[in-house]
């Protein structure tokens, strides 16, 4: 080492700003190409929604679980509140909707999905011409946030989140209670009885039956609203596509147990929209077939999703939609392959064997109940350790989702469980699903690097 510390030789100290590593970052991530097809499908889906009224379609606004196969079978157009909020955030266009929500009276600590979507409701109702924000560029941004067609009715089916039910109740009021609302109750799966566990025990056997009955009532409600008999055959057909797409998705995910991984959590995040709310059809199946094919080809060609994969990390928390590309590059910068996550791997039709095409409502009820924020701690611990084992996880990044306490509240306990039972290191960082203001890069980087240093030291001890 040669240090010239004299005052007159600043150059030799190399104090120039370009010395900072963050300015010289090379993107070491290698995202799947096939997921861009999903982006196109999602864009087309929303464009279609925006013209629903012109086409004389009934529109339902809903939140929470994936009721869309039912809506599709009933000939409805459906708008999923979180999905639209996430889309706005991913495009960095959430600001006008959130501002509208705040102007209406919803505080920043409210779930940012809810806040954004409520803002959309306000804007949809008021119309863009009434907005005079005076902010340059706001009008263009307004155009997307205010494009949603007003609903003909609401359906709420939220598991594990009390805010979800209040959110739709508030939206109902924003629209002057002019449109009916139907609530599906999804009880918590506590998992604290002796025979309880993931997909097992008397609690598990009984609760879906209760939900299945409610789904039947929902269908009666939809028939009443649309004045049309429900098409049960169409529902079975829809679920057959969902089942196949889900199987392909899981098979593709399982391929990522390979090291280095051919695809990452960020690719699975990009694939959430298709499996969660796009129409169930052959295109959906084709999409996941393409994703699986690309992953298989990557394995054959020994192509990894992260250049120089040195650490395999699990992501716990809902995605920070404002930061998808940024976090993809950020973790890869430190040779981290984020290979799995609670949000991607334990949500969205993740148990396709439960889908019975002769009795589709039961399988749907079961899936709605296994939402990752609807379990008691015992089951969450079981699932976390299972995923850590499957994907040979070295560390866990806990995204402390600031306005989603339902996802965040057990994280410290889960961190201890992973450390105690598997010796897996972890760290927490703050952020949010659809509000960039809660993310602080220094906080993420300090925690991430410290965790990687701990992993290195742990490896050196072995």
């Amino acid at each position, binding site marked *: 080492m040669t240090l010239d510390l004299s005052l007159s030789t600043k150059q030799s100290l190399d104090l120039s700003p370009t010395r900072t590593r963050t300015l010289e970052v090379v993107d070491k991530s290698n995202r799947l190409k096939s997921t861009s097809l999903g982006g196109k499908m999602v864009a087309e889906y929303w464009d279609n929604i925006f013209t629903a009224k012109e086409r004389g379609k009934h529109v339902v606004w809903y939140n929470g679980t994936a009721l869309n196969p039912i809506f599709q079978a009933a000939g409805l157009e459906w708008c999923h509140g979180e999905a639209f909020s996430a889309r706005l955030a991913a495009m960095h266009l959430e600001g006008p909707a959130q501002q509208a929500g705040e102007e209406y009276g919803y505080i920043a600590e409210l779930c940012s999905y809810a806040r954004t979507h409520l803002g959309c409701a306000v804007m949809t109702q008021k119309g863009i011409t009434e907005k005079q924000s005076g902010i340059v560029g706001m009008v263009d941004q307004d155009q997307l946030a205010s494009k949603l067609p007003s609903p003909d009715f609401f359906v709420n089916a939220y598991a594990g989140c009390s805010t979800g039910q209040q959110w739709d109740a508030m939206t109902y009021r924003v629209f002057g209670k002019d449109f009916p609302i139907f609530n599906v109750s999804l009880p918590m799966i506590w998992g604290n009885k002796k025979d309880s566990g993931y997909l097992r025990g008397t609690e598990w056997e009984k609760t879906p039956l209760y939900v299945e009955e409610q789904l039947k009532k929902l269908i009666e409600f939809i028939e009443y609203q649309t004045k049309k008999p429900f098409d049960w055959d169409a529902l079975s057909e829809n679920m057959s596509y969902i089942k196949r797409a889900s199987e392909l998705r899981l098979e593709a995910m399982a391929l990522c147990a390979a090291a280095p991984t051919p695809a990452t959590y960020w690719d699975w995040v990009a694939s959430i929209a298709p499996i969660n709310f796009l129409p169930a059809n052959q295109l959906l199946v084709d999409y996941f077939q393409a994703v699986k094919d690309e992953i298989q080809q990557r394995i054959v060609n020994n192509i990894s999703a992260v250049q120089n994969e040195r650490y395999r990390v699990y992501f716990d928390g809902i995605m920070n939609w404002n930061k998808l590309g940024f976090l993809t590059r950020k973790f890869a910068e430190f040779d981290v392959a984020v290979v799995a996550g609670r949000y991607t791997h334990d949500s969205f039709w993740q148990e396709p064997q439960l889908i019975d095409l002769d009795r589709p409502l039961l399988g749907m009820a079961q899936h709605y109940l296994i939402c990752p924020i609807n379990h008691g701690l015992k089951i969450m611990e079981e699932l976390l350790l299972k995923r850590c084992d499957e994907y040979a996880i070295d560390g866990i990044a806990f995204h402390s989702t600031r306005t989603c306490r339902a996802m965040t509240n057990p994280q*410290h306990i889960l961190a201890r469980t992973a450390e105690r039972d598997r010796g897996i290191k972890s760290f927490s960082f703050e952020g949010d699903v659809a509000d960039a203001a809660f993310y602080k890069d220094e*906080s993420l980087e300090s925690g991430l*690097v410290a965790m990687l240093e701990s992993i290195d030291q742990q490896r050196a001890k072995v």
Partner: protein
Amino acid sequence: MAESNAAEWFVMGVDLGSTTAKAVIVNSAGDMVSSRVVQMGAVSREGVRVAMEAVLAEAQLRPEDIVRTISTGYGRRLVPGADKMFTEITCHARGAAALSPGVRLVIDIGGQDSKAIAVDDEGLVDRFALNDRCASGTGRFFDVLSRALEVDLPEVAQLALDGSTDLEVSSMCATFAETEVISLLAQGADKADISASVHRAVAGRTLGLIAQVGKASPVVMTGGVAKNPALIKFLSEALRQPIEVLDDPQIAGALGAALIARDEHLGTLSKAIADVDTERQLVAAQSAGAPHCADCDGHLDTHEHRPVSVILQLNHLVGAGLRPEGQ
């Protein structure tokens, strides 16, 4: 002052924090030969230069006597000549474990953030928790208090030790705390009680961090806030166990960085020798007709593309007064 000899070498740890720069030099035996803390304001490049110059001068060493430098702290990317960076978490754990063997829990409260670090029996990080985005419970918190009470920083601690009534000040954020303090002053509350209440709030906040990693004993406190006797008292009471304060708690991170530099250099020495051997074998292979390097026509002994790491390692060997056989 360090007495240099051919076999002895030195490493440096530099901790560029949010309000101070700290530098420590450790010799090849692992002994600290000099240290310096410089108060220079927010992440100051000038501060780190002064600290590094001062610590070299104190040890009577030249920059080229330092075989490896590791930086840490918020400004770790700005430390000139650093070979590698580590987080404060790893470095404080290592430094505290060296200064207080057997430590199991390190509480580091610096100017900008707070950390609770569970340490294993080898002085390595087991678990850690960082404060969230705001400056609650950090040194900044006490700066704000000092300004609001219009007293010097050391006096704030003394006032707190004299206070008795708990005024239940919010622990949520430094800005809110300042507002609360001004409000309490306006209500005629005693300054000593206010100061004590703020300290109690910070202790409670720190206790929350400790809860995340799990209570363990013995406890050592590092960082600038460890010099605040009132906080030690309140935190110790809240934790219900004694807290050891290091003689110079601010240098723990820089010392840890220096010790890691020493570890790495010890490892690097043997690896460098191995690499040199490998290179010599490459030369031998070249002479024996092995495939040539297309870029340099096989002149491996003067290879312009020699791996940088090997060049650095060779420099380190020379800097350390050691020469691989035949060099």
